[in-house]
């Protein structure tokens, strides 16, 4: 019989518990393994009645398309939002995206890209901070 490593929450029997929520760790289930993390800040200035589109990259160097998770916060916010995210108000909208780029592309591969796009009716300057986690899990796509 295959052996397992199971760590249950206190009060649960690791030998019989089947609800993954009650297991701190179980070798039956894969988990997301961190590779790297960090932050990128885009400083944006936009004129009257103008679109903006700013991109920045993280060179992760992995030879595969990794699982990633990105969160975003504008300097006027008090909360972090998962990317993709968009918001709109009177005379303005903002959209935030993230991609990874296929490592087989010799020019732009092995990157995580974050992007902020939007529109302002009146000139504005602000910053957008992205926090990212890149995992070792290969998307295999």
């Amino acid at each position, binding site marked *: 019989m295959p052996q397992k490593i199971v760590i249950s929450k206190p009060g649960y029997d690791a030998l019989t518990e089947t609800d993954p929520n009650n297991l701190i760790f179980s070798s039956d289930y894969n988990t997301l393994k961190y590779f790297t993390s960090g932050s990128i800040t885009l400083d944006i200035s936009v004129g009257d009645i103008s679109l903006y589109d700013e991109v920045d990259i993280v060179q992760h160097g992995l030879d595969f398309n990794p699982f990633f998770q990105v969160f975003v916060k504008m300097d006027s916010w008090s909360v972090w939002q998962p990317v993709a995210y968009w918001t709109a108000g009177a005379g303005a909208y903002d959209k935030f995206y993230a991609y990874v*780029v296929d490592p087989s592309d010799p020019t732009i591969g092995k990157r995580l890209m974050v*992007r902020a796009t939007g529109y302002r009716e009146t000139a504005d300057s602000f910053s957008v901070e992205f926090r990212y986690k890149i995992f070792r899990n290969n*998307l295999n796509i």
Partner: protein
Amino acid sequence: MAQIIDSYSETNQNTSAADYAEGQSFTGDGGILNSAKFYLKKAGSPTGSAYAKIYAHSGTFGTSSVPTGSPLATSGAFDISTLTTSFQLITFTFTGANKITLTNGTKYIVTLEFSGYTPSYPNYVWTGIDTSSPTHGGNLCYKDSGGSWNAVSAYDTCFYVYKDDATTTTSATTSSTTSTSTSITSVSTIPVSAEKIIVSKSGVDALKATNPNDFIFHSDYNTFKIVATGTATFAISAGDSEVEKTIAHGLSYTPVVAGFAKVVGDVYVLSPNEYGRTITDGVQYLGFLGIAADATNVIFIFNNSDLSAENQTVIVRYYLFEVPN
């Protein structure tokens, strides 16, 4: 923090003994020896060093327990001149090769022994013992002037034997691609409330770190478990607006889902986007609008309604997670 393997509290002490060595039989529990304590005071001005030692057991436990053979482990030295004239619990720490594993259920003797000191008037090291109504399962033993060990079934020595905390101090690097294969030959259960399993990042002390970011794994923190993952390929026709594509996930409940998508031939892999991105020819957008799951299917929502849209083939990868409760 060390944990007690066996003990007999100093609160039971009613008198004291000053022999060439004192000891007490006790029972191992499978832990790694960390330290021992005896309840000691001095009279006069004794000089020399004291040690705690662990021996194999001989005799009948609780009746005629005495040490046998050479010490299995010896603690670091304690300067007995620093004792006070009032009883104190004195700690003797075991390090290096002396951190032996005390087999679960096996009987041992812990002793207090001396170097450079013999008991003689007026200089003594007094060890707290219980001669009234001792309740520990083992028994006191002492070494006489001839070097022989003697058991006293009706007495117990006040003592503590500690084991290492079960925290794992394994250090791992997050950038290593080396894998190791471990053969698991037994299954055991450890109550998480009492023990911890910690794997820290390289360069971080697993015993001291408190930031979850510094742990590769920590049994105080749950992990977000992937219960299933898969890929699917969909044909998205030109003009499809907010079209849903589904794939059966095969679970008996509604899972939490995350996913990524790319147009075949493109180099960009997307998390869900409200709008999408310019695909290879640079003139049209394919939006990966969202991903969701119901009790049967994983549902992907795409938009391919740009004015110059063409038929596209999209490949997706999805992850199904446990449902947080």
